[in-house]
């Protein structure tokens, strides 16, 4: 979360979460007073992609509501709170939202104009609408057995990202429910119990909760015991149920029964111990059980409805159970003064399911993860098709922000390029080591991670009656899927039907403040990621994985089952990242940082015979699957600044990016993968996604985001 989000989050917390301003008044003078406060936030975008669907960069989501890199907009956030009495507090927030609220809309005046795409005053996305974002009442009755009851909206941050996750900052009051909190044994034992209404918009298969929705809820409770400063333990459990009408109940005279569309139970335990001084221990374990009505996803051939109805879905298509754990060892001093080490063992099972887990702004793993892998870059080097997939994502530049690993269905809607990116890590298991060394004014931080995958399987782990791999009936949603074919994978597509993958991450960062003037903050970093995936590892698997193709390119000659070449679909990606920055306090109110980063990736995504398993229209030249085998480099020069005056903050990022994509091609020679050298006169090589020019592609991108925030 960037600084803007931090301040927004704090503001929302103030209004929505019981952080009412405490004026310097006597207590009884405060009761009944209504306090108003809020913010004015303005954002200014510019860039040379020149998409203007909405006032945020990430160009995904609904038609007319996805992103862009153009325009100016301003929004109002108004919050109120009151300590009604010693026993009752209330709070509420009303907020306008950007969406398409461009200044150029002239206040959202006038009718729609389809020829220009203007949606008109009647569309709330352009007419500067303001709506209630949330309201709550908190009751503190003063009884021994309960501390408080909160009714209304909350971000649910008192629980954890594996179960009932915190809701993202801008929408942190979108979920509502009942929250009861209490304590015992001199506050060493605390409990939280909540009924959180499920969102009908995403907390279920196919991103909905079916037709009967209003009383679907997650029941979650936790019990935290903190007997002394050295250790604590927490038990947590949740039960989410999505109900539908019982279609077998035909007698409405005695009411109508319900069935479960899905249920999701999770039981977990967390704890930490820090009584050793030199070592802190922390761990967590969660077991999930997910049960789904088999008719929801129409997975089997004899199910009613279209097959694979849950391709885009945050849940598995059949019942599943699995576990997840993390174990953290933090060595506070190791061998020499100033050296410490964090170690994390982790496993997020492929079948671990939590429909209410955090989808962003939480990080369940210690590793930096796939930061530096061009996330959501949608480069489209091959065709540069403005009307095709290039309009999605963030352009060549991708995200600047760090990676946040989540176990919910990762969500990066409504974000700008300078914000963190959530990445779903179902299936990840391994170890991360993070040494830190502080020597005088120097600080060094490193990382080594080895990551294996519980999603390493053939045909989703399925076999047919003959014992051969057969992906029919795979319960894992494909989502975008084919993004795994390109750079760092798609952030919400953790599953591939064929995978045999391992990944290693090395990172090193050094920081030093030069004693010159106000101090020059220097940073240098290097990061290397090795990502290898053998994909199909048997000839029988090749037959199942590559039986036929949708011929999206008539020039391409498919090679069914890859002619038996098991190594021809192997994938290898090597990412190198170099970064340097210098920050300086130019003025007491102004801090600026100059950044240079250089990224390279060398990728081999199999031979030109290979296409993503089950690839359809997304493999067309205008589709989102792209041919990216070869070497790509990217340079970034960035300038960040922050400027504060009393009550107002300005911040911004200017980026200029440029680089080159140098394609290479591989083919099958006698069952082996070999490099293909195009013959003289050949200018393009046919692949499933189109005829790829053999020459270099140069690219560049400029983008800017500046904001102003006034708090009052």
């Amino acid at each position, binding site marked *: 979360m960037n600084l803007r989000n931090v301040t927004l989050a704090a503001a929302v917390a103030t209004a929505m979460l019981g952080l009412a301003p*405490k004026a*310097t008044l*006597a207590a*009884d003078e*405060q009761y009944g007073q209504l306090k108003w406060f809020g913010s004015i936030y303005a954002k200014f975008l510019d860039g040379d992609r020149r998409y203007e669907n909405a006032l945020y960069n990430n160009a995904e989501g609904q038609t007319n509501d996805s992103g862009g890199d153009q325009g100016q907009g301003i929004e109002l956030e108004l919050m109120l709170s009151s300590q009604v009495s010693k026993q009752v507090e209330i709070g509420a927030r009303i907020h306008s939202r950007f969406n398409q609220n461009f200044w150029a809309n002239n206040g959202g005046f006038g009718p729609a104009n389809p020829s220009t795409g203007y949606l008109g005053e009647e569309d709330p996305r352009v007419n500067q609408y303001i709506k209630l974002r949330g309201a709550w009442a908190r009751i503190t009755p003063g009884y021994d057995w309960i501390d408080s009851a909160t009714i209304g909206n909350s971000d649910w941050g*008192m629980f954890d990202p594996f179960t009932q996750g915190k809701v993202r900052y801008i929408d942190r009051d979108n979920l509502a429910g009942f929250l009861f909190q209490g304590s015992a044994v001199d506050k060493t034992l605390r409990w939280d119990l909540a009924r959180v209404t499920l969102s009908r918009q995403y907390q279920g298969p196919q991103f909905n909760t079916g037709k009967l929705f209003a009383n679907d809820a997650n029941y979650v409770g936790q019990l935290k015991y903190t007997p002394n400063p050295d250790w604590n333990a927490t038990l947590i459990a949740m039960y989410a149920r999505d109900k539908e009408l019982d279609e077998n109940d035909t007698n409405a005279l005695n009411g109508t029964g319900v069935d479960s569309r899905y249920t999701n139970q999770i039981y977990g335990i967390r704890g930490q111990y*820090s009584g050793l001084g030199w070592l802190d221990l922390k761990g967590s374990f969660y077991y999930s059980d997910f049960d789904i009505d088999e008719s929801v996803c129409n997975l089997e051939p004899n199910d009613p409805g279209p097959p694979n109805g849950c391709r885009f879905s945050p849940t598995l298509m059949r019942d599943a159970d699995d576990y997840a754990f993390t174990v953290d060892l933090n060595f506070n001093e190791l061998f020499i003064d100033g050296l410490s080490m964090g170690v994390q063992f982790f496993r997020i099972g492929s079948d671990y399911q939590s429909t209410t887990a955090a989808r962003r702004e939480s990080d369940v793993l210690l590793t930096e993860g796939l930061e530096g892998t061009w996330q959501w870059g949608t480069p489209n080097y091959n065709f540069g098709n403005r009307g095709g997939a290039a309009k999605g994502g963030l352009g060549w530049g991708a995200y600047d922000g760090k990676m946040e690993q989540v176990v919910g269905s990762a969500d990066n809607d409504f974000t700008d390029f300078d914000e963190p990116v959530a990445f779903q890590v179902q299936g990840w298991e391994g170890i991360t080591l993070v040494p830190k060394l502080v020597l005088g*004014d120097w600080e060094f931080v490193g990382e080594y991670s080895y990551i294996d995958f519980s999603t390493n399987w053939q045909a989703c782990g399925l076999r047919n009656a003959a014992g051969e791999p057969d992906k029919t009936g795979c319960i894992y949603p494909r989502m975008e899927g084919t993004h795994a074919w390109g750079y760092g994978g798609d952030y919400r597509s953790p599953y591939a039907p064929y995978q045999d993958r391992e990944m290693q991450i090395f990172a090193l960062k050094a920081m030093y403040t030069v004693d010159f003037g106000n101090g020059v903050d220097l940073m240098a970093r290097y990061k*290397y990621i090795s990502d290898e995936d053998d994909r199909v590892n048997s000839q029988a698997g090749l037959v199942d994985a590559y039986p036929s193709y949708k011929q999206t390119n008539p020039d391409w000659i498919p090679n069914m089952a890859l002619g038996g070449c098991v190594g021809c679909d192997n994938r290898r990606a090597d990412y*190198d990242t170099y970064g340097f920055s210098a920050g300086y306090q130019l003025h007491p109110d102004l801090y600026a940082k100059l950044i240079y980063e250089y990224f390279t990736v060398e990728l081999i995504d199999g031979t030109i015979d290979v296409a993503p398993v089950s690839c359809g229209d997304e493999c067309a030249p205008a589709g989102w699957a792209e041919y990216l085998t070869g070497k790509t480099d990217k340079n970034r020069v960035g300038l960040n600044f922050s400027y504060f005056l009393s009550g107002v903050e300005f911040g911004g990022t200017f980026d200029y990016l440029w680089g080159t994509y140098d394609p290479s091609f591989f083919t099958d020679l006698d069952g082996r993968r070999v490099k293909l050298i195009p013959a003289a006169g050949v200018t393009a090589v046919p692949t499933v996604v189109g005829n790829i020019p053999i020459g270099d592609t140069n690219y560049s991108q400029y983008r800017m985001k500046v904001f102003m925030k006034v708090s009052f």
Partner: protein
Amino acid sequence: MNNKARIAIMALAAGFALAGVTRAEGVKFQDPTGDDKGPGNYTYPTDAVYTQGSFDLIEFEVTDGDNPNVNVTVNGRLADPWGMGVGFATQMVFIFIDKDGEAGKGHTEGLPGLNIQFAPDSAWEKVIILSPQPASRVGAEIKTKAANFAADIVVPRRTTGSGKTITGKVSLGDLGGGDPSKWGYQVVVQSNEGFPDKSDLLTRNVNEFEGQHRFGGGNDASCDPELMDILAPKGEGKPEEAQAQYEMLKHECGADGSSVKMATLQMVRK
């Protein structure tokens, strides 16, 4: 890039690190664990970001030299859940310094939002603020809310968190020179509040009932010290020092929430 080159970069950096400078000696104090309860009964907010020990001061150190590091160690691993970018997020620390030890010289008022005062013989001349907020933001808040103290408030040019320790680098010149090992100190551990009350200097409130982002155990009015831990005399970290802290933070609120007796802090010296 080949693997040899990658290994070379790692090895070069490691060698460079190991050839670095050595740490300097300085004044150091200890504080008992488990006394992060303010005057003895304060409780943490209920949001999961406020992890156990986050506000429990266990060590305070000032290194020597012209540009000393000020290190504050708490009994919980620092984290950055709000993306502040400096290695910590929820803490905010005030280090009050009595350079002369003379009664009648210096300030006896606390800073806005803390609801404390200092004994006359512990009046402070300088205060260092360790905040995860950008120095410019802290400076802007000071201009608005503590303008009369601004000349005596020092915001380090760089404040970072690593492991359990928050570090700020200051210039001895900004502190008016002198020998830090001879000074008296009081360390006040509070919480970074990005959207503070109109009169509070980026501090988090303490009310009667804890909330998701609000400390509990205090008073809904402003008669209670709003902090979670201080440096308890004698600064040796013995368990019994916790009681000395609770005594120091004793205060009295009127029935209407007015302040009858304000918590009065003493400096701790070596």
